[in-house]
């Protein structure tokens, strides 16, 4: 109980000195039947040394990407994080602060969020961004809800089957209790969203069309063509990006006429962390500002005219509008957004582009190397960024098992998400899986098959 400063004697003295009465009096509002059952059956407290040993033993039971080359991506990317990020992040003034409700003593958090919002608009090309969302998947779900709010009478939302399966699941859960129909657009043999199918099926009841950019197969959809189809029906165009680094090389979503751009920001500054916490990015056009969910920080000035920042436009939010709020969200992923902001600041204009270029080069090297092995081929003949799908003539679950024996974690078998894509693997290559790791992988795959 080393975190509690008060001794029993202190507590007794405080009750007596203040005239608050006995502790039993204070809790007399709790019915006795409830009180009687309240004793907690939990193991006794652990001292710090024993606790740390126990935590270390749990941690050691997991494979770690730093020891075991990992070619998994699919929404969680193994990027290098410069040491300065962690050091700044763990400053207690950022780490142990709360939501900046008192702006006079929270300018650090507020300005950092303002810088984050600016970065998100720069990467996506959109006009405005919020202070962050739980993750990319829930950001996409909120984008769909927002589109339906804007296109009030329209009840249908098209979502590409080349969007991350867990993102699609999340959208379905969020919309499940509302009168919204989610329609999945098939993908083509090139691993792209099927535009012909969309053109035939989109109608006047469509509120929005959502794609992933680059998509789950690592491929880039025909963004311009799709954008035209969507705007011809006056629906909203939503893009979701799981790998934000791709936007160092690829055009901003806004340039394809996207109305709401969401993304997962984990790749910058945030460890994979077994899947979370990550950070959702959310940006849109000024026209839709007041329909946007989440927190916003805006510039203003103090009594002396000094530039400063505050939480703003909270009239859209739950604590004022209650059941009429734009969403029920009341937090953001502030610390993860800060990590993103610091990492991107360190990279700078050139570093960010260079990071994207390095990922592209290494991934293409790996793609060609694996595809040239007997028994392996590229599944979708389309340009890709740092993820690609490989077809194998072997059972890929077995293949991965054999790779593991050589201390390599292979690609993601897609058949779990797409039963028709039997014996395919989604590989991801980043700057952390360099040439040496790729060659080890290719050699192992060559030996096994």
């Amino acid at each position, binding site marked *: 109980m080393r975190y509690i*400063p*008060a001794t029993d004697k202190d*507590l007794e003295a*405080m009750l007596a000195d203040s005239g*608050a009465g006995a502790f039993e009096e204070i*809790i007399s509002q*709790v*019915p006795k039947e409830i009180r009687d059952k*309240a004793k*907690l059956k*939990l193991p006794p407290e652990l001292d710090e040394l024993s*606790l740390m040993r126990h*935590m270390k033993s749990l941690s050691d*039971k997991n*494979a770690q990407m730093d020891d075991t080359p*990992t070619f998994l991506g699919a929404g969680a990317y193994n990027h290098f994080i410069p040491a300065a990020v962690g050091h700044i992040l*763990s400053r207690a*003034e*950022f*780490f142990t602060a*709360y*939501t900046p409700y008192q*702006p*006079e*003593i929270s300018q650090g958090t507020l300005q950092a969020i*303002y810088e984050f*919002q600016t970065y998100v608009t720069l990467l996506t090309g959109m006009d405005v961004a919020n202070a962050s969302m*739980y993750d990319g*998947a*829930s950001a996409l779900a909120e984008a769909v809800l927002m589109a339906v709010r804007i296109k009030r009478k329209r009840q249908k939302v098209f979502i590409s089957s080349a969007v991350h399966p867990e*993102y699609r*699941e999340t959208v379905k859960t969020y919309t499940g*209790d509302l009168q919204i129909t989610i329609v999945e657009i098939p993908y083509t043999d090139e691993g792209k969203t099927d535009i012909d199918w969309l053109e035939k099926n989109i109608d006047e009841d469509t509120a929005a069309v959502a794609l992933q950019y680059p998509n789950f197969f690592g491929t880039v959809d025909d*963004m311009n063509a799709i954008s035209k189809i969507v705007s011809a029906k006056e629906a909203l165009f939503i893009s979701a990006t799981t790998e934000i680094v791709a936007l*160092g*090389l*690829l*055009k901003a979503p806004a340039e394809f006429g996207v109305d709401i751009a969401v993304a*997962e920001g984990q790749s910058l500054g945030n460890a*994979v962390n*077994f899947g*979370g*916490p990550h950070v959702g990015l959310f940006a849109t056009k000024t026209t839709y500002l007041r329909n946007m969910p989440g927190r916003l920080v805006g510039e203003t000035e103090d*009594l002396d005219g000094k530039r*400063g920042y505050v939480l703003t436009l909270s009239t859209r939010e739950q604590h*004022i509008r*209650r*059941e009429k709020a734009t*969403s029920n969200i*009341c*937090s953001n992923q502030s610390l*993860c957004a800060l990590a993103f902001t610091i990492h991107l600041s360190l*990279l*700078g204009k050139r570093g960010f582009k260079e990071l994207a*270029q*390095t990922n592209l*080069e290494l991934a293409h090297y790996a793609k060609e190397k694996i595809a040239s092995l007997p028994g392996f081929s590229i599944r979708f003949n389309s340009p890709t960024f740092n993820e690609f799908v490989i077809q194998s003539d072997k059972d890929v679950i077995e293949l991965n098992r054999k790779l593991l024996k050589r201390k390599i*974690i292979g690609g993601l078998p897609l058949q779990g998400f797409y039963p028709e894509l039997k014996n395919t693997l989604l590989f991801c290559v980043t*700057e952390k899986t360099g*040439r040496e790791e790729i060659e080890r992988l290719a050699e192992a795959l060559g030996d096994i098959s």
Partner: protein
Amino acid sequence: MTSHNNFNESSQTEPLIFERSSEGKTGVMLPPSGLDRIDATNIFPQDFMRGEIEDIPQVSEVEVVRHFTRLSRLNYSVDGGFYPLGSCTMKYNPKVNEEAAKLSGFTSSHPYQPQELSQGNLQLMYELQEMLGEISGLPYVTLQPAAGAHGEMAGMMMIRACHEARGNARSKVLIPDTAHGTNPATSALCGYHVIPVKSNERGVIDAGEIERLMDEEVAALMLTNPNTLGLFEENILEVANVVHNKGGLIYCDGANMNALMGIARPGDMGVDVLHINLHKTFSTPHGGGGPGSGPVCVTEELAPYLPFPLAEEKEGLYNLNHNRPDSIGKIKSFYGNFGILVRAYAYIKSMGGEGLERVSKTALVNANYIKERLRHHFDIPYDRPCMHECVLSDKKQTPYSVKTLDIAKRLIDYGFHPPTIYFPLVVQGAIMIEPTETEPRRAIDNFCDAMIGIANEARENPEILKMAPQNVNFRRLDEVKAARSPKLRWSKEG
């Protein structure tokens, strides 16, 4: 008066990082790929290629470090001082939790790596589910939600799924006026019509009032216990009976669990669904507004609807079960905010059952102590023993035209983070103070002395309150201006 503010040494504002840029600088060097340069335009069609993103700044590492270090100094934090935000539970965050969460087996494991390679993570998740089940008295637990409000959403969706399975989804949710603001928003998001419930003169809900409102269309009563007045819903057993008899369910907002450990388990009060804000009661750092984590605990009847996956154990091997046909589905990618789960798990282990019981006992004593010490200086709208937070109002200061906002801003001059203000909405000019268990008596006394000093100033020199804060870098910020002409990003044009 001398400044009590020592958390801030710098006297200047910090320019934006975008204003620090100059051509050619960088703070990171990447490893050479050892490969031939690829021209990306040979891979992607030209019309997909992006030029320079001109406005991303170019800054060296030392400049980045100084920029953010200076920014950090403009923040108040728990490690720097008392942070009595009611209902937010700003308690001390033990340092060992951070060491644990940084272990590379946790940070650098991939969610899609084979389960046999993630046994440590899965064991931790399984054991945390079990421990939260014990603490809440509701044994079936999901760790998926990323925040309290996210947990609320999952919980209300489960309530809907349960009623659908019983044959009628129902259309209404009863929400007391002392509930958190997210509660009505969440119910609306789940397609429910919100019916407000008035609390009685004792500040709690009344079984008779619930009886009057309860019908076959009410899916749930969504309450917060202890409620946002800091009071225990003393009629909870009767109220739960009334709701259950008409086929309704009880949702409890678990934001205030810090008051209950060892004192009352929601499962024993008749609650069917509860979310727990791990970042509050279980002491994970708030990080300036997140990440949080909001596990949901339920009864056996609601268990089939928990969002997937759930951690399970079979003969010493742990796995994630995705195969749950009646589940409401997935609510985010992967498995919840795992890094936060690690911290909460370490915290519970370091406290044990008795330690957690002591947490709540101490939090209650501290809150009641503050209420008693301030009794003669501030209005107490519901004057009864309170749980882990107490609510005051500015009624006694009204004759001097001093408002809650002025009191809060003046506290900043005394070196304190102000309490939560203007909440709950049922109290006009509310001031909601939550000391938690981690404040020593000396800090609490200093805070009370400051509050009493401010009450005296309100009578003798109200102007000084209106001009506060004066002893920090920023004076009152113009929130109206920010909302009227929103400027939400930096741009070169200004």
